[in-house]
């Protein structure tokens, strides 16, 4: 379970981006964070990921509190490689590795055995519909396929928390819908919890709960509309 308490971020002398944010997320939950441009959505995500220091507050995952001051790079990296999965807008698939090698990176970082790596990579590629692209070069894939590789990579090591920052920003609506559905189903299937940061109402609508980040904190945005309702 993710627990965020009294989390604040400011860049003095500017007014704080957000203050005293309290937020919790159970395993199996998938939520979206929306907000105006520049409100600090990505920064909020980065603080939770341990990639950026918080001004104050605490973050813990599965009752393990970690260093939001972001001083210990090794410890933060070890935490990320075990507990977190990321999906980026720009996919960030390494062009010089095969699809399977890309997916295997988090398992290798966690010192998994080669048997386990083979099994999990095959499972995940099968789950994202790329079983037949195992040895292919990412250069031969479409944008949607590359994001599937990224999703498989984000979940292959069974992280507790998946953070997705505008994962469909570079995709056409049809592919985006497929990717969002896949992401949701895989998060739930792997019993992870996930935060989706997006500007897209449609993307946000695929989650179980939408929050709006403001300077005063993270506020639930109700009621949630289905994608069909939004399109209508």
């Amino acid at each position, binding site marked *: 379970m993710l627990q965020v308490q009294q989390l604040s971020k400011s860049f003095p002398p500017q007014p704080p981006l957000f203050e005293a944010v309290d937020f919790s997320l159970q395993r199996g939950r998938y939520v979206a964070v929306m907000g105006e441009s520049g409100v600090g959505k990505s920064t909020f995500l980065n603080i939770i990921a341990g990639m950026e220091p918080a001004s104050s507050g605490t973050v813990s995952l599965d009752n393990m509190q970690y260093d939001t001051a972001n001083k210990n790079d090794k410890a933060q990296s070890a935490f990320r490689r*075990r507990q977190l999965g990321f999906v980026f807008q720009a996919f960030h698939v390494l*062009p010089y590795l095969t699809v399977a090698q890309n997916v295997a990176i988090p398992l290798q970082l966690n010192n998994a055995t080669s048997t386990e790596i083979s099994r999990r990579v095959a499972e995940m590629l099968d789950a994202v519909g790329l079983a037949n692209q195992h040895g292919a070069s990412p250069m031969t894939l479409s944008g949607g396929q590359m994001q599937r590789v990224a999703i498989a990579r984000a979940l292959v090591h069974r992280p507790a928390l998946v953070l997705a920052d505008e994962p469909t920003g570079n995709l056409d609506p049809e592919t985006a819908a497929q990717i969002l559905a896949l992401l949701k189903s895989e998060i739930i299937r792997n019993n992870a919890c996930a935060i989706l940061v997006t500007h897209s109402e449609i993307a946000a609508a695929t989650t179980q709960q939408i929050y709006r980040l403001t300077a005063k904190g993270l506020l639930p945005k109700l009621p949630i509309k289905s994608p069909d309702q939004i399109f209508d």
Partner: protein
Amino acid sequence: MIKLIFLLSVAGLRANITRCIMSLCGIALGVALGVAVQAINNSALTEMSQATRTLSGAADVTVRGGSAGFNDLLFATIANHSDVAVASPIVELQVRTPIAPRGLKLIGADYLLLAQLNPTIQLRPNNTSDRYSIFATDHIFINDAARQALTKNGVILEDALFTGASNASNGAVTLKIAGAIDWPGISEPLIFQDIAAAQQNFSSLNTISRIDIRLNLGVDRDAFIASLKPMLPDNVALLSPEAQDDQTAAVSRAYRVNLTALSLIALFTGGFLVFTTQALAVVRRQTELALLRTLGFTVNQLVAALTLEGAIIGVVGAAIGIGVGLGIAQAVMQLLGGDLGSGFFAGSKPKLSLSTLSVVIFGLLGLFTGAAGAFLPARAACAVPPARGLKPGAAELMFTTLPSPVIGAALLIVGGILTQRPSLFGLPLLAYVGIGLILFGAIALTPHLCKVIIPSRLPKIGHFQLPSQSALALNLSLAQMRNAPGQTAIGMAGVVTSFSLMVAMLVMISSFRESLDVWLNKVLLAPAYVRVNNGFTEAPGTFTAAQQVRIAGDTAIERVEFNRIRSVLVSHNGLQTELTIIARNLTPEVIASLTPINRTPQQNSLLPETWISEATASLLQIKVGDSLRIQLGATAPTTFYVAGLWRDYSRTKGAAVIDRAVYQQISGDALGNDAAIWIKPTWTFSAARDHWQRTWAEGNWIDSKRLAYVDAAEIRTMSLKVFDRSFAATYLLQAAAILVGLAGISATFSALAWARRREFGMLRHLGMARSDISTMLSIEGALVGLIGAATGLVTGFVISLVLIFVVNRQSFHWSMELHTPWLMCIGLAALLTALASMAARFSGQAAMSQAPVQAVKVDA
């Protein structure tokens, strides 16, 4: 449009100032070294050539003997020749005084004849001398430079004492400075004396060095030379002023060409640095270039702008290099003289001179290097379609394709063929071109080699398996290098270039040194040597027959061998060289010590035998089994059978060994120069030396003060010291080349880390610590260093073979055995790998300063 292109170029330079400075330093270094070498050689050569011409005055032709001179009977024949207007006999010597131990040039001439050929020469007797002092035996006239040389503690010595004069009964002569001589165009110290006096004081009475001739008006010079040549003995040469210049230049030409080639190699490595930095600069500017293409710039305009940037760097680098090079030349000439300590122009302190043409050539070389270094990557960068170039990650895709391996293979083959061609104009020019092509071929093939030898995954070694996390870093490095070899190849090229040149020079120098050491051990058969120092002239002094007998009977001496060394002008096959004749007792032991390369016993004839050095064989185009005419006595030349070829590292103009008994029989000369002494076992060298110094000073049978006693081990140590000193400059060049190679790696990894910042950002998100990425970069740097060094090692070894077996033979006419300092080469390769790893780590870290959260953004 041109204005816009210029604006873009200048803006590009300003925005990439650090890289520009690196490129600029590379070019400046190469140009500086080239200019320095060129200026030093040019200055020394100009000085020598000018001196030779000025001393000959307005002579149309000069008759010149070897350093031993020739009989002056020839003068009468020439002076009476109907085509000759003026003939001026000259005695030319190097003389020494205690306060000018390096020696001063003495010209002995008939002033009245000399003045006809050189009307600008003026003798100015001082107040205490009269006009007839010109002809006085004990009077000399000196120029300003000699005046300075003979000035001690600010006081000019009125009476200069020349000790050890061979013709003086007490071994010394005191000469009075009777006045000054103004000899325009001569800046070196010069002493003038009447020829008869000079002959009486310093050389044989009937020996002269040369005859300067002015022909009658209308006489065809070439026809005169052709008609006179058959009348001349073998030991004199008939030279036009142009031929004299050529001869002056030829003495050191090979040495100069080798140094110039070395400096061009430095320029080449500098050019590589430009290529590396420019190639990687365009990687960083890929988006900017795509945007400009989108705005309407054509490929050619962008290529022109980028090439102009390189050209500007080239011109500025060349300008700085020329200035620095002239400064280096000035400093080196002050410290070492015009010959960098090699002995080719010993004693000269020339004025710095560099022709405008040389300045222009080096300027153009800098410009070309800068422009070419920028042009190739510019073409590659601008060929990327703008739409692709604007997409994120475009930089990662640059230089991922490689030129065909056929090009590299073709360069290697053509290079190999060229190294097997004979010399051009007596110089190994084709071999140098071949070396360049081999180097280019190796560089072109290295990235293909990476693809072949780098495994796609870390290979399993038995049951050993790295923890998967460590294996990941290694696998990522392997995959990056295997699948994107173009980018790493740019950095690797610098390593291959610099390390191959370093290995080539190391192997060549080591082979030369080892061969010299072996040669010295064989040549220095005796444990001790005694030599007469001729305090008066440069020529070694001699032991008379009586002195030789007395020395042989010394209580400390078990055995003594005297040799006789003389210079003789020898002609063969229409070629001429001043051969050093070494007459020594040719015992089987001595013959073995000559390191005979081959020996053919005489079959039918009973000619006296001679063993010639490799240089002699090459210069006179003579081989074992041929016959060679050498004039040793006053009568007709003797025909010798060339019985063997031997290795001689000390006389580049050639040498021939003959048996001393044969020599004495032919020449009647029983004098000896060096005494090789085997000390009795009960004596040590120092005890024997003390004994000789004490006992030989008694009586008047020998001038013991002029004797030098040398331990053979000391000669060997000194020779190797001189060798090491003369190669010191090449070590500096090697260090500079390695620095350039490392700078190339640093530039490569700096740019690669920048291009791969998204990859690193993603890996950081996935849980790789900053230190893990640094480790990954270190591994990649080490791999680049290792493969570059391994390729450089092989290429350098091949180049060293060309240097040893082709360039050296064609330049200096001597051979050497191959000695490869493998341990040192492998140690240096390991050091280079470690340095490359560190350079990659630190330059990558600097480039990774961008936060990972920024790096993974779409517009990062």
